[in-house]
């Protein structure tokens, strides 16, 4: 296997009793890039990450992380891996500095280098003036910066971030992503799970998960370009009436409202879909303008997850 690949899985599956949390997931994640898992809660993002760091044993399939077999070689991966859990997992009754010192000792960082490394991290993550404050009293954004500082303390090759920005304001999220790009520039591979479209769009590569399965994967731009549906934008004053009309048309996959506009996904098989919809609206006596639009990641997500639901209904 190429050393340019950080994570490789084949048929990775995890069952909890009768529930299949992760269902035959195949992944090939390159090094020094940000790879995203996009999916709703319960789509298997966390379970996949936990299998990749050796915390959960797969029910089936294989996973190779940095050339190490999981979960067999989990202990060897520890030093090369940074893991930011979904829930804040540092000690709330210890100060920012004490938390970092504790982990530095656990990772056997050189005592000479330790102080300098912690000072650099406090600086980088803008926590220097909070160093003596207890972690439990930090704000959401500060906690998240501390958690990322802790996960990168030992300069891991690989970073797993499980929904890192779920309790954070938009400005903190932007800053956070800046930090991630800095890390990637230094050669770190990052796997991040999210349910935010804008975050997913920032990733180099993306896998959309739905109920344990990968329903689409690739670079976000490619996914949007190659979406398996035509995206139409409808503007008008009677959007309610428009929706009712569109609901009658079989080829319309989904309709979502975005402010004063509607986004409709229409089957690729339909030729000139904008003409088709305009005619249908016209004959129903509803006034509206229909135009072709560029697909957003949300459209991709809707099209991908809907496709699977339909095939299930047919089966």
């Amino acid at each position, binding site marked *: 296997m190429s050393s340019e690949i950080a994570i490789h899985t084949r048929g990775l599956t995890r069952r909890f009793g009768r529930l299949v949390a992760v269902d035959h997931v195949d992944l090939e994640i390159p090094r020094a890039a940000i790879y995203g898992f996009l999916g709703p809660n319960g789509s298997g993002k966390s379970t996949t990450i936990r299998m990749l760091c*050796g915390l*959960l044993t797969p029910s089936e399939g294989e996973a190779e992380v940095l050339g190490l077999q999981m979960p067999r070689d989990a*202990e060897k991966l*520890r*030093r090369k891996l940074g893991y930011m859990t979904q829930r804040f*997992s540092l*000690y709330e*009754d210890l100060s920012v500095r004490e938390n970092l010192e504790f982990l530095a000792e656990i990772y*056997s960082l050189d005592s000479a280098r330790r102080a300098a490394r912690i000072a650099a991290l406090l600086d980088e993550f803008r926590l220097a003036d909070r160093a003596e404050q207890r972690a439990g009293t930090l704000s959401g954004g500060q906690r998240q910066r501390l958690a990322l500082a*802790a996960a990168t303390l030992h300069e891991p090759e690989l970073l797993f971030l499980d929904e890192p920005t779920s309790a954070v304001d938009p400005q903190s999220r932007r800053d956070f992503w800046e930090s991630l790009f800095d890390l990637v520039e230094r050669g770190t591979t990052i796997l991040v799970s999210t349910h935010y479209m804008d975050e997913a769009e920032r990733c180099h590569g993306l896998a959309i998960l739905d109920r344990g399965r990968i329903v689409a994967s690739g670079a976000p731009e490619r996914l949007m370009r190659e979406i398996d549906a035509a995206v139409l934008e409808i503007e008008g004053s009677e959007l309610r009436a428009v929706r009712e009309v569109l609901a009658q048309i079989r080829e319309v996959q989904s309709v979502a409202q975005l402010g004063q506009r509607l986004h409709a996904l229409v089957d690729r098989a339909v030729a000139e879909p904008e003409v088709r919809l305009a005619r249908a609206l016209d004959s129903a006596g509803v006034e509206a303008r229909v135009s072709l639009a560029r697909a957003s990641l949300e459209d991709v997500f809707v099209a991908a997850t809907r496709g699977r639901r339909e095939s299930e209904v047919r089966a």
Partner: protein
Amino acid sequence: MTGLSRSLSRVAAIARKEFRHLRRDRLTGGRVAGVPLMMTVLFGYAINQDVRHLRAGVVDLAGTQSARLLVQEAQATQVIDVVARAESVAALEQLLVAGRIAVGIVIPADFERRSAKGDRARAQLLVDGGDPIVLGAARGLVSLPVADRFANPALAAWPRAPTFELRAYYNPERRSPVHIVPALCGVILTLTLVLFTAVAIVRERERGNLELLITTPVQTPELMIGKIAPYVGIGYAQVTLILLLGRYVFGVPIQGSLIDLYLGSGVFVAAALTFGLLISTLAETQFQAFQLAFVTFLPQILLSGFMFPFDGMPWPARWLAEVLPLTHFLRIVRGIILRGATLGDVWPDIWPLLLFFAVAISLSILRFRKRLD
């Protein structure tokens, strides 16, 4: 750095972290010093096994002078205080049922005749048999020697020598605190130390810290040893506090060597802490850990010889008690404090504690997985 020094520094890191948690917890002071202080003082005074001043009732159907003398003599022993008089045996029984008296003295109408003949007991004692300690004390009254003097006044001038002369070794004044305080030391250590470590692992699991910790290079034995290390210090602080209270409040002398006592306590402290740790690997929540810990407390307190003499128990109970750390520690601590035994003398109770420690920590390490499944 070599592997071993890395390992030791990780143990130190865990221990330092635990110590910081303790320092930040507002209840720590209470649990470390308050509980031993309160329990030693309270129970040192309250638990008293030499029974005195039992409330007694009398029904005197004879009404003679020697009958009254008998009652006076019985009261002079201080075992009973006559607090009620009844007209009939039935009325006396009623007082006993109502709990107003613990002992009833029945002097039958033919008391004088019985005394003269000497073939039957002269009087009757009605005792609340529900309490074995009261029953035992009342038994002492049965052979009250004074009565014999009235049986044959001619012999009264020749006090009969008692069959046995009782001499209490190690506790000549037969004061309860001397017996109780060293044992309380073991009970208090069990209650506080087991609870400290019983929540040690579960707490991290509940708060989500464990998910991070198990993805670090820390090894399970390092985690376990680091977790109990700070509490050994706390155990020693408690032992010292209880011994000081025992010495200066209850006047309990320490016959043996203080070094032996501290070494023996150390072994017990380690055993109690790993007992808690084992509970912590079995429980899934802190609440479960507390429940499990409490389930183990009752057998320890009841079977260890703290409440009841060990030799009086049937063999299955004794066999179970031999597994419990407190049983061995009570023998060690009573031996060293009261009888001046050396560590060598109490070795038969040291090695079971060492074995318990080794088994419990091994099981804890085996039970703990650096996995979530």
